[in-house]
């Protein structure tokens, strides 16, 4: 490559980059888009209204709803914003836990980024417990979790495994089922 050509490339590139730089500071992103995790957190909050736990799983009308978060990840972190929110006279408590055995007193268990093997044991452990399991890991509801969040064409959807919900004695209002994608075990 000749020296003259090298300089030509340099000049061109510099011009392009400088041009881009000039126009950038002036621009604004149009319409701020919320993050995936914030939308999921808000959806989860709104879903709680459509879920009934069996007697004994949650005491008096005024007792708080405990959302336990297991594992790291942006969705789990965004849930912190729900801590202290009020839902029909119940306070929402968000608690981060380190292992599934600590989820005994939780009404909702959010599974963040954990090892695949851990997911199976979490699903196993919660199978007989009245705990609404929620995750945005792929195929979570298909594998026996109750609610799985998925992204479809840039929008958030949720999948509900009604067989799992029934087993765990969690009643889900039909209004919620209507807008969810349903999966069920064939039995």
């Amino acid at each position, binding site marked *: 490559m000749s020296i003259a050509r090298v300089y030509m490339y340099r000049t061109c590139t510099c011009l*392009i980059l400088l041009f881009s730089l000039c126009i950038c500071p002036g621009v604004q992103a149009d319409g701020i*888009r919320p993050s995936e995790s914030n939308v999921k957190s808000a959806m989860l909050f709104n879903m709680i209204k459509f879920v009934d736990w069996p007697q004994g799983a949650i005491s008096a009308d005024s007792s708080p709803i405990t959302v336990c978060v297991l594992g790291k990840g*942006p969705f789990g972190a965004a849930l912190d914003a*729900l801590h202290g929110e009020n839902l029909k006279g119940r306070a929402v408590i968000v608690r981060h836990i380190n292992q599934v055995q600590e989820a005994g007193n939780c009404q909702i268990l959010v599974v963040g980024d954990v090892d695949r093997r851990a997911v199976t044991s979490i699903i196993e452990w919660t199978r007989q417990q009245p705990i609404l399991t929620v995750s945005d890991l792929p195929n979570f509801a298909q594998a026996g979790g109750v609610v799985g969040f998925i992204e479809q064409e840039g929008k958030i959807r949720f999948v509900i495994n009604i067989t799992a919900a029934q087993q765990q004695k969690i009643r889900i209002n039909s209004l919620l089922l209507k807008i969810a994608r349903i999966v069920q075990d064939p039995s």
Partner: protein
Amino acid sequence: MNNIIVLLVALVFWCCEAGAGDTPANNQEDVAVSDLTKLSLEALMDIEVTSASRKPQRLANTAAAVFVINQDDIRRSGATNIPDLLRMAPGVQVARIDSSKWAVSIRGINGRYSNKLLVLKDGRSIYTPLFSGVYWETQDTPLEDIERIEVIRGPGAAMWGSNAVNGVINIITKNASDTRGGLASAGGGRFERDFETVRYGTRLGEESDLSVHAKHSGRGNGLNSGGGDAHDAWDIFTGGFRLDAQPSAGDTLSLLGSYYNGSFNETYTLYHLPGENDPTYSWIQPTTSRDNGGNLMGRWHRTLTYTDSLSLQISYDHYQRRMIVLDESRDTVDLDFQHRFAWGGRNDLIWGAGYRFSHDNLGATPFISFNAPSKGTNLFSAFLHDEISLVPAKLALILGSRFEHNDYTGLEIQPNGRLIWTPTPQHTFWGAVSRAVRTPSRGDNDIVYRYRTLPPGAVGNPLPLRLEIDGNTGFASETIIAYESGYRAELSHHITMDIALFYNDYTRLRVLSIGEPSLLAGTSISQPMLLTNNMHGHTYGYEASATWSPFDWWRLQSTYGYLCSIMYLDNGSTDETNRKNAADGTPRHQFSLRSGFDLGHHFEFDIWLRGADRVGSIDNVSIPGYVTTDVRLSWKAGKKLELSLTGQNLLKARHPEYIPEMINTSPSEVPRTLYGKVTWKF
């Protein structure tokens, strides 16, 4: 060349620093959860979110050098074909030969007939057993349909099977439920003459979706090195469908089909022995070649538990090609089964078995014929892969091997061992040792290719000399032992980086060895040249890539690859041409720098700067290095309409990238192009 790269990198970082300093608080634009909770579920479901789909967590768990090209990268690249998209992946060598031909390889040993790459589309192998390579010109899937392309550098044979010697490219199309509604796009320009795509997706029932598509692409004749018409126009129609269903919670069924019909202009230099009426030795022949084919694939996947699953895949593929040098038709049936399960708390096991039968018909021409014009070959395979968790979530050992039996060399064992250490979720170190083979192709065994005729006197012989490349039934598998390591880091939410090092040790590589000459009817000499395994060598190098999003509206991605290749001839072979092809047929340095801006008011502005070092020798021709730039500007008019203008290779009127080895077709140069495109969703 080096200076330019350094300068560019410095410049970009300087620019970014300057830019970042101006508006420091602008990084995290988001909507608070407390504001979102006021919305109804339906309203939340209708919000378009900024995607975190580039989830580094998933990549972080891979003990291999992986690079993912997602739909956003595809759309914003302005590329109109799959090989051009692959240019953004580090360590992948893409060089255009003419408008319908590319040389594509990973970590070197490139060529039009490069054969050390496994390419899968939706899990179905698309390399042809004829030469163990890919006819890229038949892969004209609508780019809007591709969800992502995973590029794995280094051997993937333990998992994926033979031919995954230098790497694996996995093209994954969108699930039918992700393509609901209609899409129509059309565009064109000078060399990208015209292209049109129509797609429509609909729900068939509660849990099933069907999507159908059709696409046509037409490229005009390009320019050769002298600026004349290169006679390389290419026209292809592709149609296809995808059906995805979920009959029960754990079961998914997919049925995919596609068909293509194309024609492409080529100019051959053909050789023959002079006859009584025709004293010439060679002539130039412009032709139009044709290809068409189709395939059908079914896949069933059952989720047993979160860690356990079964899948079964069956596919059938047919294609035929009509060229002046060869008629080829081929039918392939493939069956693949996999079972994944957790065992004993620490083991994540996958095992599987497969069978492939491929049958061809190869019509002889005066130039190429095959010792058996028709042949069917069997491939049996089985594999076992265990990921052993040594320290949960921190340290894992992966052991696996594939066992294959093919008709040419019998049993082939391709093991690998990998270690992955993630001290924190943000940092991953990995290392691997693998063995893989490139099993003989049909060509290696049976080809008879009369590829050149030399006039008398040219090499000191009194008679016309016909050079003939002959297949070798004793051809053995080419073998690699690869040593790799890498480091991946998510330094912040805005910066990720990835470095991989490799040392590849090759043995039994293919070259030509001179055979016994024979006298043809007393008037000419035939000089056979046998395909043999008489070369060994090694390559080493590294690749680095980094992404940085200083703001929500600006994203930068840079990659750099370095490769050194050293080859030695064995057993007295004198085939310097093919030795140099393997050693010097790939650029040493390559870089790519992409910048994507969201300009506001629904405008996007993308710049892609890339370059490659010189190609030292491909069939004894060297090709200079180049630096080139693509620019794309697009505007979304509402939710349904997008208009874009793309300029490609803007820095120069045209530049050469490659010439074809073995088969003598005339290359064309990569021209500066400008095209417009309209996309409408309905």
